[in-house]
């Protein structure tokens, strides 16, 4: 990396608190939106054309928002807060009201995972009241689908990822546990398909590329560990990437499956080529400790990717553009 790291393309200010989570939403004609959940319970909706807050919705009774997402089809926002609630918001026609909420009972930091099964229905997976259990319900009917509890003692659920394989009939779920294992669950069978010990330390984050059936997970150590799900739905640990500093809080693969970004405890965002896990760039925020958050999108034509990280004051997310990097071979 001979070139100096690029400076942020723009800094969104004024969130008024540390940010925990980010989510991009780029519907066809509208200007792209960015949702951010703050530690003070506010969800800011940023218009990325004007780069200003379009709307601020407050829920979760002031406790921090740890996950936000939107549904493709409708103007529905889903947010998870540390008040053990998952709220569904109706944002259509400039409304902003909670239409429904689900009590999770989880006191951990495990973020939910959502899978849209049909235009109307979608599955939501979340950590349950018991530290190891994962609950899956169908929304908006709130019908419980299943509860997944591992046989062995694996500790708390740290991160989950719900996905729909092309071949299989039902959705599958990837879950990382406190003891460092990653488990693959079959949701319809309610059974464990396979298990792999990816890390000696708790799995802090994982992400999965459903096209290549390849995933990667990070922990509190210096390594990123990548693994694949083979045809028999077995998890196989593949190569590792060693980082300079320990601790990874978030991983994210760009929509086109070319870039992987990791957010480290060392306030750095590292970008890798997803295919060969070759390091490409490292963005430093220089200023603060940060629990870096990532969200990548390919939908904005001019910027190849957006990486975001908050500051202590939480008032900012920097957008970095990787345009200046040699991304040709990706």
């Amino acid at each position, binding site marked *: 990396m001979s070139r100096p790291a690029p*400076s*942020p393309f*723009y*800094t969104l*200010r*004024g969130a008024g608190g540390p940010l925990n989570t980010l989510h991009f939403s780029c519907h066809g004609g509208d200007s792209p939106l960015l949702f951010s959940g703050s530690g003070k319970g506010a969800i800011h909706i940023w218009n990325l*054309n*004007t*780069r*200003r807050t379009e709307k601020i919705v407050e829920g979760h009774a002031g406790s921090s928002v740890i996950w936000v997402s939107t549904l493709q089809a409708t103007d529905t926002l889903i947010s998870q807060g540390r008040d053990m609630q998952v709220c569904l918001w109706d944002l259509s026609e400039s409304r902003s009201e909670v239409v429904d909420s689900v009590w999770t009972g989880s006191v951990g930091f495990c973020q939910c995972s959502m899978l849209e099964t049909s235009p109307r229905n979608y599955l939501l997976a979340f950590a349950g009241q018991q530290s190891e259990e994962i609950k899956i319900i169908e929304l908006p009917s709130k019908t419980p689908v299943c509860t997944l509890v591992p046989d062995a003692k694996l500790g708390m659920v740290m991160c989950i990822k719900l996905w729909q394989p092309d071949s299989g009939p039902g959705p599958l779920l990837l879950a990382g546990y406190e003891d460092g294992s990653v488990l693959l669950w079959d949701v319809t069978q309610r059974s464990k398909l396979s298990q792999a010990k990816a890390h000696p330390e708790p799995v802090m984050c994982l992400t999965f590329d459903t096209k290549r059936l390849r995933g990667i997970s990070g922990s509190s150590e210096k390594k990123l560990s990548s693994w694949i799900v083979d045809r028999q739905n077995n998890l196989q640990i593949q190569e590792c990437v060693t980082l300079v500093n320990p601790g990874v809080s978030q991983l994210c693969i760009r929509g086109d499956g070319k870039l992987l970004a990791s957010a480290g405890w060392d306030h750095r965002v590292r970008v890798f080529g997803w295919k060969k896990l070759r390091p490409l760039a490292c963005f430093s925020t*220089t*200023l603060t400790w940060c629990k870096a958050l990532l969200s990548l999108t390919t939908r904005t034509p001019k910027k190849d990717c957006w990486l975001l990280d908050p*500051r202590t*004051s939480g*008032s*900012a997310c920097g957008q970095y553009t990787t345009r200046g990097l040699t991304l040709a071979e990706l």
Partner: protein
Amino acid sequence: MPRCSSSKSMSSSLFDSSLKSPGQRKKKRCRLWLRPCVHVLENTCVQSWETLHGLFSELCLCLCSPADPGKPADTSEELKLAVLRCLDALFHAAYGDIFFKLFEPVMLPGLGAAISLLLALGEKEKSRDIQVAALMCLQALTLQCDCTQDHVVPSPEERCTIGSTMASFLPGITTAVARIITGDLRQGHTVTVRAIKVWSRTVALVLDDTQLQASKPEKTSSDLGRIGQLMVRRTPDWVKSTVGKLSVLLKKIISCTSAHQHWKVRLELVELDDHLLSRCSQSLGECVGLLLEALVGAVNDEDPRVRERCEVALREVSQRNQSCGSSSAQTFTDVLSENLHSLATSLPRLMRTSDDQKKLFVLNVFLGYIKVLGPLVSVVLNSGAHLERISRALMQVLELDVMDVRIVEERSYAPSIETSSGSGYSDGAHIQRKHFLYFTDEKILCVLMEICRTLGYYGNIYLLTDHFLDLYQQSSVYRKQAAMVLNEIIRGAAGIAVATEGQGVESQVRGHSPTQEDLKVAVVSVMEEYTSLKNWHLITVSEETDIDRQDQQLLTPSRLLSISNSNFSSTNANSLQVIPSSFASTSTSSSSSTLHQLNSNIWQLCIQLEGIACFAQALGRDFRSLLMTSLYAVLEKAGEETLLVSQAALGSMRDISKACGYPSLKELINENSDYLLNDISVNLQRLSQHPQAPRVLTVMLTHSDSSLLSLVGDIVQDVLIALDLSYDHTAALFCSVLHALMKALARWFPPSCRRTSESARPKQTSTQKEVFNIRQFLLDQRKQKELAEGIGIEEDDSEDLEFPPPTECEDVEDLGGPDVKAELPPHLSITKDVMERCIHLLSDPSLRLRLKVLDVLELCVCVLSEKENELLPIVHRCWPALVQRLTADDPLAVLRAFRVLCTLGETCGDFLRRRVSKEILPKLSSSLTRQAPISAKAGPVYTHTLAYKLQVAVLQGLGSLCQRLDLAEADLDAVCEACLPYLSCRQPIRLQEASQSVFRHLIQVDPDAFWFTLNELHCPSSYIPPHPDLHPIQLSGMGRPRDEYSDNVLKLLREEFGSVAETVDQPVS
């Protein structure tokens, strides 16, 4: 009165008999006879050809001289006039059918004679009336009279007859009349107007399009003989050659009348143009260009009547050409674009050579063409040659003169920004005018700008912006002009300041007006180019003067002037003093080419800044979304040191805020502070590439208010961290930011209560005025005495408690509150952070920086004064460094440090008093005492030494310090003792003055004590007690002879105790 047919036959027969041969009559009788004749003719009709013919030839005979029938007779003017009237009346009275007999080929010789007579009269006569009458007759003869009487309306065939007959006389008439028109300038305008009328009507009659197009073979009877040779056949060849000759005449006429002083003449010229263009635009061929040029040139006539007529004419012309067949419209457009092209070609030459009047005319013509072309402009511009030609012409004409030295010299210092922000919209004192190489008249610039706007209004916005952007990029020679043109084109495209004649028509005509979206795209592309790195970050300050200037900037303001501007600055040894404003001359001598370049850069920036304002005007509120990229750039320039640039930027900011609908600059900045701060924070991290970021922050702070604070907090942290990371290189830059920040904070949060300022400062010298109340004095004294003895100490809150040490006050807070300290308001926590940095920077090796830091520190103290618990600990930490500045630094720093100390004295007097009296006063007074004998003995060279400057600085600061701190008596005595030697007249004069100032302050603290002290030294008068019982006063200064101190002591006594001294003096004298 209607002409009744019954009487007319009678009267005509009457004429018949009486007029048989008037030629033989005496001239006098002839005149007598003419009068009733006119009357009769005016009221009757001539029905018979014989009468008409007879009268016509008789009257002609009357006019011509008997010897030479071709020349007018040498008769009296009255007679000629009467004959002409009569002729006129005859033409009016003739019946249509017989009138046309005049134009039969047989009549040619007679008609020719009459016409040449009339022309001769019109040309040669001295009397205007005769001239006019002769010309009127000519008009009436061709049935073109424009008087109010009834006229015969000829049928097309009849017109054709007249036309073909008159064709024979056309050369004669046109040359002669043209001579009249272009003849004597002093002849009355009526003659000229009439002549123009005759010219235009005759030409229009002969070369009428409809007649020529009909072009039926005119039958020529062979029996005419010689007369047949006179006949002219209007063949195309003939027309062509005639038009060639006519164009020469026309050129003469136009050049003579287009700038005629009288508006009626110019109006008539417009009429001529209009008439000819409407009647015979096709047959006139090459003349059309000339006519159009003249018409177009009158579009911007100074007289509104001419202008209006011309506009009507032009509109008719353009409509006629659009409505009628495509081929003719094509030719018309061709003519126009041809004219435009040739004018554009010759424009640079004309602009170089001709005078302002002519230039203005030429440009008006240019503008007129564009206006006449209207929407066709875009068609014309599609031709590469035309566009190229026009743009080159504009580039050359608009070349700026960049030789003015003052532009580079002028600097805007921070204070000037401040004041301009305070006064809001009061525009900068002067907007610098642009100086052009080829013209000086402001009107010319206006026309040029209007040309650009009109081009933008009608032309294709994409084509134009692309083309001029190309020129802009091509060469630095064209850059400024191209930018100017671009600015106006975009304004014009938005329809701003474009003179739209006849709104209704216009809106239809301009069908393809660019949408707001088109405009925005164009603006974005131009603005990107303007604000790109290479076009925006231009050097406007020559490097070597930069440091000088900064020094000067630091040194000049406020009280330091007294030191730096004294007479010793030229031979200054330790190079602290700056020779003011001398760098201008050095820079000019060093390299004028670079100066040239700098000037050019400055103008380019100004034009680009104006451009951004223009774009904002063009887009209106839509410009708001572009503020994201543009506002930072403009603010960057508003912080520039070059006066012209910063003024232009401020002006631009005002225009932008107006265009975007913000009520003032403050709102503009506040509502877009997120955009600005983002750029600032990004650029702060790469300061080496973007050194302007702090400047932008400075501008923001000066123009905004406290609502900015929440967002700024973040940035200030950035600044401080960036400062921490690189103290060596960037401290100076950041210090100015911190200075601006603290200034802004001090303005936004004025310290609510100056606790000690009121109590510490004794009432000014008003004591003199007060009636001395002895009773009160005695009571007070008794109370003091009792206090001293310890009586009543309980109820009085004494000064024993004085001030708690800083550590204690923190403890108190900790005890009182919970473990967590209450969060400070943001501005105070920022101030605290800044002050922390100041502690380190106070001992920076660079003097400039130290001075700046002292200024910042002073402001910090002001802001923080409202929270003593925060202030005192940090002052405690600052103290050692400050003491160093006060006691062992450069004189400039000493003085500045004194100011800080005084501010500190105001805000935390008690806290400081003991420290000052313990740590500072002894050192200062001892050094003063030590130096006093040296300076008293020293020669003139001494004033150049550092020791001297230090003495001055200390003496200048000491007085106010003592006063502010409310020092104890012992300290005052010490100060007094140290300063007394400086009252000696042997000291350098400035030391004496400074010492006087110390005493003035001291006297305000304790007038009585120092009155006594001074009198002890020298007492000018003896005091005789009013009552013998009282002891006589003995002062040691009494009766002393004049010594070294007496002058200054007397001066002080007179100034400070003036009235007392006089009243005391009186009984003595």
